[in-house]
């Protein structure tokens, strides 16, 4: 499929970018630092490693999305490399899909490397049983990054990198607080409540992808949770990319 060609090229480009290498090295260093800090944790060193290890995967992934993802399309437009692609029999929606898929796969590769390093560290400490919970937490973190990445690609197709990063960050924050928004809405008068609840629904439901609390204790989540999170991520990403395609179709490239 033609979108896979674009995805493959995007993946190749992103992987060859030194930013990703720095991210991986930074993540590995952070894992090492958690071990160095473990004596200060008074017996909770394992928990420190698991929590900070999983958090670093999410935070570093978000950093990649905000720096690389938000410029994914706009950089091609500015540098006019997009001319060589869209003048071919490549539908614009498939172009956006390919860009999103390529970066999502690159993020998955980074998460896999860091997640594997985390598990190896735990296994060396005699806690290989954390494999399942680490895998699930990393999988859900990747779904979260895929959702944020879809927003980044959409904004990147319509705006400058700086504005795209701000909008994406705004949706990320709103997504983390969507439960609080709904709780706040319940105390508001009906008109305002409907608006706030609407806003909360538009925001990505990011708490759905958070199982760091369970992974902290080596616990697994349910298949229902995994299924719901996967389905939600697929639907949300498809919706955002469809919106992006609708706006991108009429865009002129001067």
């Amino acid at each position: 499929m033609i979108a896979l060609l674009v995805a493959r090229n995007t993946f190749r480009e992103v992987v060859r970018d030194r930013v990703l290498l720095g991210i991986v090295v930074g993540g590995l260093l952070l894992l090492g630092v958690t071990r160095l800090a473990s004596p200060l944790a008074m017996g909770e060193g394992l928990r420190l490693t698991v929590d900070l290890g999983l958090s670093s995967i999410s935070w570093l992934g978000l950093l990649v999305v905000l720096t690389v993802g938000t410029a994914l399309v706009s950089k091609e437009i500015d540098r006019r490399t997009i001319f060589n692609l869209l003048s071919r029999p490549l539908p614009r929606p498939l172009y956006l899909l390919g860009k999103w898929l390529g970066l999502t796969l690159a993020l998955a590769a980074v998460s896999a490397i860091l997640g594997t390093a985390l598990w190896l560290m735990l296994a060396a400490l005699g806690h290989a049983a954390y494999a399942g919970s680490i895998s699930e937490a990393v999988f859900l973190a990747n779904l979260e990054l895929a959702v944020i990445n879809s927003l980044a690609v959409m904004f990147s197709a319509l705006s400058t990198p700086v504005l795209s990063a701000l909008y994406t960050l705004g949706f990320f924050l709103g997504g983390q607080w969507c439960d609080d928004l709904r709780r706040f809405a319940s105390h508001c008068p009906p008109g305002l409540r409907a608006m706030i609840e609407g806003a909360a629904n538009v925001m990505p439901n990011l708490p759905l992808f958070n199982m760091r609390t369970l992974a902290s204790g080596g616990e697994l989540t349910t298949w229902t949770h995994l299924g719901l999170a996967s389905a939600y991520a697929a639907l949300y990403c498809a919706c955002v990319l469809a919106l992006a395609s609708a706006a991108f179709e009429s865009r002129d490239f001067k």
Partner: protein
Amino acid sequence: MSMTSNPSAPNALNADHQPLAAPASGRPAAGRPGVTSDSGPAVSIRGITKHYRHPWTQKVTRGLEPLSLDVHRGEVFGYLGPNGAGKTTTLKILTGLLKPTAGTATILGVPIERVSSRTRMGFLPEQPYFYDSLTGVEYLEFVARLSGMPGREATRAARAWLAKVGLGERERQALRKYSKGMLQRLGLAAAMVHEPELLILDEPMSGLDPFGRRDVRDLILEQRERGTTVLFSSHILPDVEALCDRVAILLEGRLERVATVGDLVDGTAPAVEVRVEGGRVFEIPPRLAPVVERADAGGSTGLRLREPERLQELLAWLLAERIAVRGVTPIRPSLEQLFMAAAEKSAFHAQDVRRPA
């Protein structure tokens, strides 16, 4: 001279901007196969217009006036105009990068609004840019596959075309290390790697040294021999004159003229210049004075005869007056002169008018 005022000119249109029957051109396309106006045109443009509206002020800037044009299959078609005339706008509309405000167009019979219209087309944008981290082979293989070539064939074609444009030894080199000329050649290879039937080239000679320009000319000629239709815009008018079967001149977003190079040039008044020894005092006879202009320069005098058929008469008089003749040269206006004349006639100055490209 506007297109519609000269019904005998090629691509003349009627009042509804529909083409008249394609007349025979004054300069036949060298008897090459595939060059015929009987098969459907490679590119057919009907009333394509492009206006830009500012989102806040709603002010309209006119980029391209209703344009109608046919490019016949197998021909090399030159698209000329000063900066901001609308050449790149036209090419980008054909390649799907810009949406026309009005009008329709087809490429090889397929409407441009369909993605499939670009399957058999190759496009070289002006000053092309590429992905820094890719190598030449990777990039060509990528774009070949985007144009529908299967994987192995795309790799083979990528290597072949890279060698063809003189970059075969740099297969593994990242594109960030390419010079401007190398990038231009890579762009050409990218436009041709999938063996398209139509090539649209925006300033293909841009950034190339004379050797590079020669190579590009050879490539275009080779494509022409294959029967590929080539539509290109250029500022280098001698190249256009040498390569093109027909030429269109675009000014201020409006199509001024379409004709063969020969018709353009032949349609102007020819002249003959006779150089004689300088320093002689003589007076042109009254019967020849209206058609002879005299210009003294250095050690010789130039006599420009506007009616070449009276050359023998002038030479006979010079012989009778014992004025030594140094040389006789037919004067044929170049395309560049015609272009400049047309531009001045339309009172267009590129540095005074800002137009979207």
